[in-house]
């Protein structure tokens, strides 16, 4: 709950003006609804009283009937305005939330970012940000507007009707629904968490079942795996049924609150009329206002059914929003890359990935890292980029430790092209300009020529060729070269490449490799490579080997 409130504050602060206006309109809508019913009730009862007394001629019908029409039309108009404004504010706030999330994550450690590539994480983020769209719209705004209108109604009933009726109606509506909500969300917390966990387990098990069905069938595990999926779904259904039960009880409590307070207003009204303290039309106002205020309670039900998901989502999203203070300054490192007996161990692993590694790459030189797959070549590149910190030994670029530099300084002169191709939905030009927003079209074509992609793209829509999500629409080799071209746009002083020509035919691979060197003659290039075309362009080769003489837990 605290996480959710903090998140709502962050959201609200960003869109203060729009939200205040939205709130004002929400209050107007509710207030007009209450006034409409209260006034109509009074009008009819008072008219009846006047008619019975034979005073119909003297009764001013025009003011109240005009008011009734005004309120009816005004309420409709205000409703429209309220919907547009609050939805706009919410969309703005959510858009802001997603942007902040992206900004916050931008500064998280590399390994953490890397884990986010998993589909499970991405689905989770999508679901979480979607769950939060109701936080303002269906929780906070209705609550604030409801309280305001209830208080105002109380303040008006006090002089217009009677203090007791004012206290009973306003006090009851202020306390009872809020208490029901507080209680309901507390009781629902555990089943909501269980339901969520069971659904995630079911999802993950179903993925394993579908993707691994052949393997599971081969090992005779298919029936059992299907049963495990069904068990998880059944657990979800059980928790869900419990949640539904809680919602039914709280729903009934809320219904009874409205009915009970109307009864109270009616009973008090009758008693007060019989004592002669108020007139029948005044009592009617009390009853009708009590009835009308039921509308302020309606959103509580919906909010209760969503609050579990919202709080869980907020708890997960909130930590990612904390943007660390942007460290700036620091010169982009330049000069020779030096590894001095560097090792790196994955967290919790009891041995390093590779044997101590030492190498030098001077500006203008090309050095190839060799070694079997899994030997840690990619890790070595990330160490050179300062994305990872070595366990022992030192990494220096022109005497500076890249891992100690602020991100902006580091990326100012170092570019890494990993094996995966990180492309986004949009045009080719948009993807290229992510690295260099001011690059001219000529410059874009120039780097595309370097990576042998210009002809391919010219045959399509040139720089305006559109890519789908995650760069779909290009073949693997094309995507990889586009990423390479993007790195070249930054004119790096240190270029770190992970198997850059994988998937290309030998001729194109050679052309790309010689083009790379020609495009940045002064850069130090370190590449992880298997292929002869890549290895041929190297000044030196360095072998990455597995660490030897390990203590082996399995005694083999």
């Amino acid at each position: 709950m605290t996480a959710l409130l903090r998140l709502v504050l962050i959201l609200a602060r960003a869109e203060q003006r729009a939200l205040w206006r939205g709130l004002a309109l929400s209050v107007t809508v509710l207030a007009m609804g209450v006034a409409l019913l209260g006034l109509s009730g009074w009008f009819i009862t008072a008219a009846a009283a006047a008619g019975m007394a034979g005073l119909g001629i003297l009764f001013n019908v025009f003011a109240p009937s005009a008011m009734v029409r005004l309120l009816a039309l005004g309420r409709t108009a205000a409703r429209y305005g309220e919907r547009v404004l609050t939805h706009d504010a919410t969309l703005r706030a959510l858009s802001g939330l997603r942007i902040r999330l992206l900004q916050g994550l931008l500064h998280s450690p590399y390994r953490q970012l890397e884990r986010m590539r998993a589909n499970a994480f991405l689905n989770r983020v999508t679901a979480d940000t979607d769950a939060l769209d109701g936080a303002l719209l269906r929780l906070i705004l209705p609550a604030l507007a409801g309280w305001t209108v209830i208080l105002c109604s109380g303040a008006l009933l006090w002089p217009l009707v009677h203090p007791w009726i004012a206290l009973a109606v306003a006090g009851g509506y202020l306390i009872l629904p809020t208490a029901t909500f507080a209680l309901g969300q507390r009781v629902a917390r555990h089943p909501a968490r269980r339901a969520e966990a069971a659904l995630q387990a079911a999802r993950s098990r179903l993925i394993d079942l579908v993707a691994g069905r052949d393997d599971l069938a081969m090992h005779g595990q298919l029936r059992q795996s299907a049963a495990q999926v069904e068990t998880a779904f059944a657990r979800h259904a059980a928790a869900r049924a419990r949640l539904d039960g809680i919602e039914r009880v709280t729903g009934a409590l809320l219904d009874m609150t409205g009915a009970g307070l109307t009864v109270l207003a009616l009973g008090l009204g009758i008693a007060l009329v019989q004592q002669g303290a108020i007139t029948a039309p005044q009592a009617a106002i009390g009853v009708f206002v009590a009835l009308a205020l039921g509308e302020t309670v309606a959103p509580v039900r919906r909010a209760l059914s969503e609050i579990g998901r919202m709080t869980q989502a907020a708890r997960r999203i909130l930590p990612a929003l904390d943007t660390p203070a942007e460290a700036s300054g620091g010169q982009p490192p330049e000069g020779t890359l030096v590894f001095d007996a560097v090792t790196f161990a994955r967290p919790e692993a009891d041995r390093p990935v590779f044997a101590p590694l030492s190498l030098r790459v001077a500006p203008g030189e090309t050095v190839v890292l060799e070694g079997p797959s899994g030997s840690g070549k990619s890790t070595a590149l990330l160490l050179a980029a300062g994305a990872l910190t070595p366990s022992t030994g030192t990494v220096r670029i022109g005497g500076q430790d890249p891992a100690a530099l602020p991100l902006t300084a580091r990326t100012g002169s170092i570019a890494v092209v990993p094996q995966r191709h990180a492309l986004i939905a949009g045009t080719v030009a948009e993807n290229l300009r992510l690295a260099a927003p001011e690059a001219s079209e000529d410059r874009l074509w120039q780097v595309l020529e370097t990576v042998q992609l210009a002809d391919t793209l010219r045959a399509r829509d040139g720089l305006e060729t559109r890519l789908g999500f995650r760069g779909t629409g290009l073949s693997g080799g094309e995507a990889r070269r586009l990423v390479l071209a993007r790195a070249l746009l930054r004119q790096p002083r240190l270029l770190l490449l992970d198997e850059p020509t994988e998937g290309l035919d030998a001729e194109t691979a050679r052309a790309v490799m010689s083009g790379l060197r020609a495009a940045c003659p002064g850069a130090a290039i370190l590449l992880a490579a298997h292929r002869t075309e890549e290895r041929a362009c190297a000044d030196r080769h360095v072998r990455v080997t597995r660490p030897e003489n390990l203590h082996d837990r399995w005694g083999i």
Partner: protein
Amino acid sequence: MPRTDPSNFAKDMRRGTVLSVAAALVWLAAAAVIAWSLGTLLTDPSRLQPLVMAGGFAALALLRSLLEAAAQRALARAADARIAALRDGITRAEAAAATPSAHGGAGALAALAAEKLEAVRPYLLRYRPARMRASVLPLVILAIAAWHSWAVAVVLLLAGPLIPVFMALVGWAAKSASEEQMAEIGQLSDLLVDRLAALSDLRLVGAGPQTVDSFARASEDLRHRTMAVLRIAFLSSTVLELFSALGVAMVAIWVGFSLLGELGWGAWGAELSPAVGIYLLLLAPEFFQPLRDLAAAWHDRAAAEAVLDEIDAWRAEDRPQRMGHGTQAAPLAPLPVVQLQGVSRGAIRFPDLRVAPGETVALTGPSGCGKTTLLRLLAGLERPDTGRILLDGRVLEDDTADAWRATLGWMPQAPHFGNRSLRHNIGFGAPLDPALIETARLSEVLASLPRGDLTRLGERGAGLSGGEARRVTLARALHGRPGLILADEPTADLDAATAHAITDGLMRYVRDGGTLILATHDPALAARMDRQVALGTAEAAA
């Protein structure tokens, strides 16, 4: 936990809907109590007993709440049964299918069964009963109004006239709102996911801040377009509310003037009593409420129908079924002689083949010649279109498939590792045999993992390199000492050292008396087998 019988679905659904209509009807009686109390308060206040009136109203309100709760209970039960049946259906059908669905990958199907199916719940809980209420309550209220006053009935009829027109309007408004807006909001999530997936690598080229900026622009753009759609949708539902507000206001004014004695018409010539006047005023908003509920639930319907359509599309696909049940069985002992007789699958006609225990066979040929398919046919994962596979002369069929598969070791090219520990992925719970670790050269892999064989593997074996994953696959194939191993391209895409280790492991298995059938492009590996069978050529070695 007890499962609701799906056959009760219709009964629960009907009961819930009827109870929900009943609860709404009880409210009409409760409103009468209020109207009568206020009316009597005007004419003869001393006759009224505050406690009796309040008690009467409270009792009716309680009855309504109970009916409503019972309705929700029945509906929730129906929804649970329906969703559980759909989920179990997906799980069973996917487990039995021999080929992947054209509908989408494992992630898409899991999202359909888990998250998306939840959208059917509000549809069953809200939309169906709202539709029933919308077709019953307005008519009842209209009848009550007409009984007392034709004028009020006419007003209600005029304001909520053309209920069909009205409904079409609602439908149109909600449809544009839900479909387009949902699609656009969905796209925004996709955009975010797109950026998040690329963020780690984009940051490495210094493109981080620009990525955020470009997302911010796209996100703002989407917001503008979404709001344009929403405005139209809100405008149409405002028209709906306008009708209802005008209706209520006109009823209030007619009742007021009649009670004042200024209007002598509209009540069938009788004089309108205050109680009836107040009652009519209370009923007016209730006339419109079911229609508004229905409009609010329309969105639920659109969302649910989209999901149900998706399931229909998935179901409509005709997919071949795997042989057997995929359950544990006792392995066939001794290992039978395997024979292929006139087998074809799709456009591929396979050569007749006989493999005796202890033999090693390499299936060779260009990509697409059916090497993988033949291995799958041999394993009973697919059924041949013609011909048969014989095990010691007995046809491989549903009743023999499970025992036959228990006899086999399986080494696919792209294995799937479950979201479980490495140990579980190899031996399905059994501890790892040191000899197995030795043969599969697994010790280096185990040492590099943070928790050894208890390390959890994610989707696609996250945390394992290609070579490590292949060793684990070999270990899994060797686990349980199979009589025959079927291996698909065991050395493809590996560096020389790893390829050597894998070949070594397989040959050691053969030396220990194993039988091996493998598909390969690698001539060196093929040469180490007893014989080679070239697929995709007319004359195959037999």
